[in-house]
């Protein structure tokens, strides 16, 4: 069966150029879809399960890295992992990081020679990948761990001591110790304490930068947890981790990317 690829690129001229170049270099490759943003890319990947995904890093909706993280998270054990090739115009993500791991990257403008090398590498890897999906998934997770800034958090100045949550004319001051977890919703972040909830209008990313790293960790795309509030990490039948909390009944999902935080000693 011919291999199938998806191109996710928000700039139409660049998407068209990559498509043309791929048709020339790899006539057997079937184009399973063109996505102009991260959300469409995720949807098309779910629908068509392509063998290869070319992901632009800067896209509206979800970034290429976030799409890859989502793929790594939602795949069941033993499912086939698409080969991911990141495409970027500017090496803000320290391209060295891509060199060490096996996933490929392309720098725009994509030249004929460079794309030919990528195609050759992809053909080799596709022949290999069918045999060991678990190893492929592990490789992708390891790769993303080096690339996603949220995973490789360094010790930085944590300035926040209270969460200031407004409701009407009042601003509630919530000490960090009382916070069990933060969960991002559409436009807000929900601050969940032992006995209540409050909404704040900041992004999870901004919040994470100001929280003490030894105590508050991101465990999922939409969740930052207070490690002191966690009582146990439980693995379900599908191999996914969930956190149980001391003072709350609900459980929290843990992304594969952050699972190492809860490995036994």
């Amino acid at each position, binding site marked *: 069966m011919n291999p199938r690829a998806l191109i996710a690129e*928000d*700039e*139409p*001229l*660049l998407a*068209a*150029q990559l498509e*043309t170049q791929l048709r020339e270099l790899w006539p057997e490759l079937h184009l399973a879809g063109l996505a*102009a*943003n991260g*959300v469409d890319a995720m949807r098309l990947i779910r629908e068509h399960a392509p063998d290869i995904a070319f992901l632009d890093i*800067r896209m*509206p*909706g979800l970034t290429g890295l976030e799409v890859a993280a989502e793929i790594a998270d939602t795949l069941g054990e033993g499912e086939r992992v698409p080969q991911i090739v990141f495409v970027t*115009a*500017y090496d*803000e993500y320290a391209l060295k990081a891509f060199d060490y791991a096996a996933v490929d990257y392309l720098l*725009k*403008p*994509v030249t004929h020679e460079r794309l030919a090398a990528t195609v050759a590498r992809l053909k080799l890897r596709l022949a290999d990948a069918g045999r060991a999906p678990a190893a492929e998934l592990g490789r992708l997770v390891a790769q993303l761990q080096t690339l996603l800034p949220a995973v490789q958090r360094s010790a930085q100045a944590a300035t926040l001591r209270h969460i200031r949550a407004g409701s009407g004319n009042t601003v509630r001051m919530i000490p960090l110790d009382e916070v069990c977890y933060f969960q991002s919703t559409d*436009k807000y972040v929900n601050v969940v304490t032992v006995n209540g909830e409050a909404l704040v*209008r900041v*992004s999870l*990313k*901004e919040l994470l930068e100001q929280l003490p790293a030894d105590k508050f960790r991101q465990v999922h795309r939409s969740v930052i947890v207070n490690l002191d509030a966690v009582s146990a990490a439980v693995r379900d039948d599908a191999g996914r981790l969930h956190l149980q909390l001391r003072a709350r009944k609900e459980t929290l999902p843990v992304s594969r990317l952050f699972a190492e935080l809860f490995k036994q000693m």
Partner: protein
Amino acid sequence: MTPPNRLAACATLPRNVLYTAIFCTVIAALLAAIGFGSGFGVNFVYSQCIGLPACLLADGGRRLLWPGRRAPLALLLPLLAASMLFAWFCGTWFGALLLGHPWRAQSYLTSLVITAAAGFVAVLYFWEREKVAELETEAALQKSRAETVERQAAQARLALLQAQIEPHFLFNTLANLHALIGADPARAQAMLSHLNDFLRASLSAARKDRNTLAEEFALLRDYLELLSIRMGTRLAFRLDLPRELAQIQVPPMLLQPLVENAVKHGLEPKIDGGEVTVVARREAGRVVLQVADSGLGFGAAATSGTKVGLAHLRERLAATYGAQASLDIADNAQGGASVTLSLPMPA
């Protein structure tokens, strides 16, 4: 100024003690020359015995009491008088002891007058020296301040330049050009000429103090044309500059950072994209410039980093117009953000 440190304040005390010793020697010699006392040797012993403790008490005392600053005169004068009286008493007594003279206050009264006169001259001398030194320090401080201001201005120009030619913008534009050259050479040429004009305007803005609004809007048009080639149908824009305002002068690249923010934080992250409008109008004798977009809006934009840009813009407005310019940011009624600048109408 560094905080006062008593030890550091005494650093030049030994030098003043040395000057005092020389001054006392000169006085002893002068007195011997006019035939006062029993010769240079005896005068020398007495003048040093009085002069050195006087200097230590007066100069040392003021340094310890008021480290690193000028002493208030009302307190300094009693200190000087007391130091001299005490030094005269101790000095004559100790000198008499050294030389084996009997000590009687009456026989040393002339030396009290000499001590007072010499002390007065010495105080005047040191006072003047200190004033000169202070003036020199002040001049050096002012010079370094001027240098700092100059360096900051140079850094600001550099930052402005770097902000305009953001690497992501440049590389993405080049990548699009690369794609167009093969697919549509005519459009590629048009794009290249927009890039050329935009880069030229950016580079010259870093060296200029003023741009006309016509130049500013031309630069925005080039910038937005480049972005709309990249973003395709996701970006629409409208520029509206009435002819009567075209020659109004403003700081160069005043609006470009606002348009960049509108696209970067409002429209680029929005899946459907949207429109940017830049409007200049005359309102109650003022020039009003407004950059509005139909993007995500200030509150909802997940991308942060607009604050630094806006703070920088506020500084530039304050530096040019003082308190006469204002900058207002707001979320649009139809979603998206808008920034409004209100500038005084030039006379």
